[in-house]
């Protein structure tokens, strides 16, 4: 049975339409993924940007014997609930440090309670009707404003949303990352050099390679179990500290750095090695003087990416107790500490609505750091990329 030309043409048309359909469907998959990213980022921006602003109100503060004893007495009764308790708490000490304040009454911009903050931002707040009118009146007189929230970047965690900041967590992240990189960068690079430049292909090398691939795929939470059982329970490293967190993350980051370094070493052409051997270099001299300098940008790029990955990791750190409540910024490797993602996790669990904003604000900061780290890595790769 033969087909007419018309039938064949129609069939051909159908086949080409099918082809076009696949193109559109697959393109929309990609667009969907990109659209998700846009939705996600804008959602975080909408939720998080208000965290960088904080309500302040201008009130009369009375410095007297009475307010020394009972700080809330320092402000008028109608605004007493609108002022942050954290501010009132600092009054007695301020008076002790500045004795000339005693007996004066000043108009001051002070930190507002988080309910005022939420009310001014148009969110649901716990303010009563009467308090709302007071805030409205203050706002009309220009005595209640949203100002840039420096405290968010300078203070540690707090149970009062208006006082909470990311500084302690940021410091914890820095300390933890220092430990991580100090441990895993040298070990990772040395392992990669051994596997690429020194090792012969025997069962030991193969075992190491299989191990590295496995470690790269082991769920991160299992590294937390390792940290808990080995570092904390066996070696007695203090819990919740940057040192145990850093050591745990180091093992997790190790495969990333090894694989990146191996790729970088492998991209160095053999002619360079042969030339160096030809003039009588020993193996280590070849590596040190010729292969490593050429592959350094690649190694650094891989390490930065590994660092960014470790910086965003939370699960293993929860297991080893790095979700502690840390109100003060501390720069010690052996003090209990928390890290940025753990801080985000803690805030996300707070029932107070005001903490949602803090959480998203923290996320924005973390994402900004991670994206700039990755951008640096990409820039490094572009700048130093060599085609042989």
């Amino acid at each position, binding site marked *: 049975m033969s087909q007419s030309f018309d039938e064949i043409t129609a069939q051909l048309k159908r086949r*080409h339409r099918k082809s076009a359909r696949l193109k559109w469907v697959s393109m929309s998959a990609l667009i969907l993924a990109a659209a*998700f990213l846009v939705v996600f980022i804008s959602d975080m921006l909408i939720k998080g940007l208000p965290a960088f602003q904080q309500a302040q109100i201008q009130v009369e503060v009375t410095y007297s014997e009475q307010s020394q004893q009972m700080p809330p007495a320092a402000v008028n009764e109608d605004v007493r609930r609108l002022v942050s308790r954290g501010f009132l708490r600092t009054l007695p000490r301020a008076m002790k440090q500045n004795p000339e304040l005693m007996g004066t009454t000043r108009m001051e911009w002070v930190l507002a309670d988080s309910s005022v903050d939420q009310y001014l931002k148009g969110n649901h707040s716990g303010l009563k009707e009467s308090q709302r009118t007071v805030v409205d009146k203050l706002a009309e007189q220009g005595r209640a404003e949203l100002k840039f929230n420096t405290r968010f970047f300078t203070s540690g965690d707090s149970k009062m949303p208006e006082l909470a900041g990311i500084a302690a967590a940021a410091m914890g992240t820095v300390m933890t990352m220092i430990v991580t990189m100090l441990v895993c960068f040298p070990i990772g690079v040395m392992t990669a050099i051994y596997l690429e430049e*020194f090792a012969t292909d025997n069962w030991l090398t193969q075992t190491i390679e299989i191990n590295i691939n496995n*470690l790269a795929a082991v769920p991160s939470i299992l590294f937390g179990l390792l940290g808990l059982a080995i570092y904390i329970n066996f070696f007695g490293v203090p819990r919740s500290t940057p040192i145990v967190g850093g050591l745990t993350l180091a093992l997790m980051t190790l495969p990333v750095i090894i694989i990146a370094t191996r790729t970088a070493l492998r991209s160095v052409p053999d002619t360079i090695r042969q030339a160096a051997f030809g003039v009588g270099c020993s193996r*280590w001299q070849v590596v040190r003087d010729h292969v490593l300098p050429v592959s350094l940008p690649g190694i650094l790029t891989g390490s930065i990416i590994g660092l*960014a990955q470790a910086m965003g990791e*939370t699960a293993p750190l929860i297991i080893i107790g790095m979700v502690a409540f840390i109100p003060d910024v501390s720069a010690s490797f052996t003090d209990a500490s928390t890290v940025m993602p753990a801080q985000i*996790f803690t805030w*996300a669990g707070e029932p107070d609505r005001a903490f949602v904003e803090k959480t998203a604000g923290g*996320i924005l900061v973390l994402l900004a750091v991670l994206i700039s780290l990755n951008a640096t890595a990409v820039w490094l790769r572009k700048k130093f990329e060599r085609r042989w």
Partner: protein
Amino acid sequence: MPTNQIYLLFSGVLLALGLAAFFMARARASRLRENGMAMYAQPDQYAWFSVLTTAGPAVLVGALGAFVMLLIGAEIPTLYLLGASLVVATIGLLVGLMQVRPTFHARQAIEVVIRAVLATAAMVSIVTTLGILLSIVFEALRFFQMQSFWEFITGTTWAPGDSFLAAAGRADEGASAAQFGSVPLFAGTFIITLIAMLVAIPIGLLAAIYMAEFAPTRVRTLAKPVLEVLAGIPTVVYGFFAAITVAPVIVDVAGFFGLDASFNNALAPGIVMGIMIIPFISSLSDDVINAVPDSMRQGSLALGMTKAETITSVVLPAAIPGIISASLLAVSRALGETMIVVMAAGMRPNLTANPLEDMTTVTVRIVAALTGDQEFESAETLSAFALGLVLFVVTLTLNMVSVIMIRRFREKYRANDL
């Protein structure tokens, strides 16, 4: 004397000995060479060799002593240990200086030491895997001494509730016995993973097909970083997004259809986890599709096949082992994913197939067991390690199978850069 000062003094003396070794050996070697002696190595190499013989054994002695103290619990006073270490360093210095002879291959000796150091570093990865395995297995064994293994694998009730009383030796006071049946946890993990895969595999694979076969270079260079950003977002952020943004939307949508959804429904973490895994699948599949030899495409096109027919009946079948391998890796990732489920899925073990209900997963229970304020010896805490063991075994198996699949693909098409 406080310990810190002792360590400082020790490091100072060791550094001084090292410097002395370097300069003395170099001076000696230079002198020999000036006398017209032909030497096997450069003066600097003799110098570095002396530094190695000085510092190396000393550091080893120190580390060994510390390790012995920790392992056996034997008390060696720090002062004696460090003193012994310095004595060893001095002996090493003398040995190093004696080796400054024209017939000594200092460069080769350094080479041997460096090779050994590098090999030791490479062993760390093996030690780590062993560490994970041993720590989990030992604690899991202790758990199975308390609870029956069979009950753990087949039981359908997970209620660790009163196990802390048992640990405190007051088991008889507990109202009900603790039960550790892990089936609901596995079921929850399975359903959330399934949802994630239903999102990630089609979208990831189609995106990979578009990027590898259709997209112009400009789109490709733009789309890759976008997907990479998606992969670089920390999981805790995804978790927050799932719990705060996606879950309420799902509850609203379900309510619109007259369905009752929990705010901790399994759909939200599943979908968000799927989105997280999209870049993982797309980049691996992209690599695999690109590795399919062009001659196959050309052959197919030459026979008059359209582009879509070429892709669906030539390229994809060839790439299927690689795609399966990528999907298995993705499954193993989804199984072990923790933060998204901890933040967005429920805590209640719930044996159901309805994704709108709340359910919990293995990783959630691990976190819950270890962040409570229980004694480490309690059955609930140890149950985390038993669950961890299961997780380890399952993900390891998936990875192994995935590696075998990709190797088969590589051998078939000689795609060595995969």
